[in-house]
C-alpha cells in the first residue's frame, strides 16, 4: 500500500497554481507589506519596529486566511465534483489520498511562509537577524498546522463555509489559548459554574495547539526569546500528525 501518491500531490499543487492562489497571495503579501510600511512610518519613532510588527502580524493573518480558504474550498469542490470518488477509484489508497493532500498543502504552506519572510526582510533589511529566521520557520509550522486543520474540517463537515468557520474558530482559540488559560489559572474563578467552565477550558486546551507561543512578532525586534526551534517544529509536526490521522479515521469509516 502506497501511503503517498506523487501524482495526487502534483494534482493539488497544479490546482493551486490554476486557481491563481499563489499569484493572489503574492499580491496580497505585497499590498499588506506596503500598507504596513505606510502605517509604520506614521509613528514618531521606532519606525522600523512598527513596520516589522505590522507587516509580520498582518501577513501572518492573511496567509492563514488565504491558505485555509484555498484548502477548504478545494476539498469541498473535489467532493462536489466527485473528484474524490474518481481519485479513490484509481490505485490510490485512502491513506495515500489524505497523506498526499496533507503533503501538498504543507508544501504550499512552506512556499507561503518563505514569501512572507522575504517580504519582512524587504520591508526592513537592516533589522534582519536570527529572530527573523525563527519567525519564518515558526510561520511555516503554523501554516502547516492550519492547512491540515482545513483538510480535517473540510473532510468531516459537509459545507465549505461551515468548515472555514470551524478552522477560523480553531485558529482564534489557538492564538488566544494562552490568555484564556492565564485567566483560568489566575484564581479569579471562584463560583462552581466558573470552576466548571475553567475545567472545560483546560480540557479543550488539550487538543488546541499553542499558536500564541509561535510566530511571535517580538522575535523580529528583540531576537529569539525562550521558545526554541525544537518546540516549534515538534508542535508543528505533532499537531499536523494528529489532524491528518483524525482525517484518516474519518475517511476510512466513510461509505461512498
Amino acid at each position, binding site marked *: 500500500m502506497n501511503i503517498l501518491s506523487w501524482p495526487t500531490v502534483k494534482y493539488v499543487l497544479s490546482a493551486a497554481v490554476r486557481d491563481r492562489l499563489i499569484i493572489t497571495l503574492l499580491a496580497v503579501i505585497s499590498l499588506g507589506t506596503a500598507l504596513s510600511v505606510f*502605517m509604520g512610518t*506614521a*509613528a*514618531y*519613532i*521606532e*519606525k*522600523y*519596529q*512598527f513596520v516589522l*510588527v*505590522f507587516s*509580520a*502580524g498582518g501577513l501572518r*493573518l492573511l496567509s492563514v486566511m488565504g491558505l485555509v480558504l484555498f484548502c477548504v474550498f478545494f476539498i469541498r469542490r473535489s467532493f462536489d465534483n466527485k473528484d474524490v470518488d474518481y481519485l479513490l477509484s484509481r490505485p490510490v489508497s485512502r491513506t495515500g489520498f489524505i497523506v498526499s493532500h496533507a503533503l501538498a498543502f504543507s508544501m504550499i504552506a512552506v512556499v507561503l511562509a518563505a514569501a512572507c519572510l522575504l517580504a519582512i526582510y524587504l520591508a526592513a533589511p537592516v533589522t534582519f537577524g536570527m529572530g527573523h529566521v525563527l519567525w519564518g520557520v515558526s510561520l511555516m509550522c503554523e501554516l502547516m498546522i492550519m492547512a491540515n486543520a482545513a483538510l480535517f474540517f473540510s473532510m468531516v463537515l459537509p459545507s465549505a463555509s461551515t468548515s472555514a468557520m470551524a478552522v477560523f474558530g480553531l485558529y*482564534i482559540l489557538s*492564538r*488566544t*489559548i*494562552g*490568555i484564556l488559560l*492565564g*485567566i483560568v489559572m*489566575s484564581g479569579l474563578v471562584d463560583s462552581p459554574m466558573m470552576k466548571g467552565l475553567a475545567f472545560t477550558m483546560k480540557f479543550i486546551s488539550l487538543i488546541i495547539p499553542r*499558536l*500564541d507561543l509561535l510566530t*511571535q*512578532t*517580538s522575535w523580529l*525586534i*528583540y531576537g529569539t526569546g525562550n521558545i526554541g526551534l525544537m518546540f516549534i517544529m515538534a508542535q508543528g509536526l505533532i499537531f499536523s500528525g494528529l489532524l491528518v490521522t483524525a482525517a484518516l479515521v474519518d475517511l476510512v469509516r466513510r461509505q461512498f
Partner: protein
Amino acid sequence: MNRTHEKRAIFAAFWLMMLLNVAVWWHAQPLRATWGNVPPVPSQASAALMTLGDKQMAYRTYGLLIQNLGDAGGAARAFKDYDYNRLTKWFWLEDYLDPKANFIPALAAYYFSANQDHEAIDPIIDYLAEIGKRPDPQKWRWLAQGVYLARFVQHDYNKALVLANELAALDHPGLPTWTKQMPAFVMMQEGDKEGAYQIMVNILGSQMKSLQQAEVNFMREYICDRILSPEQKETDPICQDPY
C-alpha cells in the same frame, strides 16, 4: 402584471432606493465622529485579545492609537482637554505589553508633555521617573527627562531635586557623568532657557550614536523649536542641517 409593468415597477423601485440613499447621505454628510476623550483602558489580561494574543502587535497598535488620540472627525484637540490620568493608565498598559520599547516613553516625554496646563503632566513625570529607574540600556534618559519637565516646565524645584537625586544615585553601566551632576543643575539659579538647553543637549549628546535618526530629529526639533528662540535657532549648530 405583464412584463412592461414589471419593468417599470423595477425601475421605479430602483430610483426610489437611489433617492432614499441620497437622503441618507444628505443626513449623514455633516455628522462627524465625536471625541469621547481618552478611551477606557482594557485590562492587562484582555489587552492582547484584540490582536489574537500577539502582545507586540497590541503594543504597536495601541501605540499608534495613543499617538493619534485627539484626531477624530478631522479635528485636533488641545492637550489640556485630555484626561491625563487615563492617558497614563494607557502608558502603563503599554509598559506591560512591552517594557523594553521606548516609543511610549518618548511620546510621553516629548509629545504629551507639551500640555498647556503644566499641573496636568504630573502623572507623566511619575511615569517617566518610574521607567527611568530601570537598568535596561537608555532607560535612564526618561528619568532625566522627568527632571527636566519638573524643573523647567512645572518649575517644581523640590520634585525636580528629588528626581535628580534619584538619577544621580543610579548605578547602571554606561551612565554619562553629567547625570551625577544633575542635582547641581537643578539647584543652579541659571536662566530657565540656558539650563533647559544644557540638559537637553547633554541627553542628546550622550545618546546620539545609539538612537534612531527619527528620535534624534525629534529631540532636535524639541530643542530648536521649544527651547530656543527663532534667533538662537538660526545660529545654533544643533539646528543646522546636516546635523
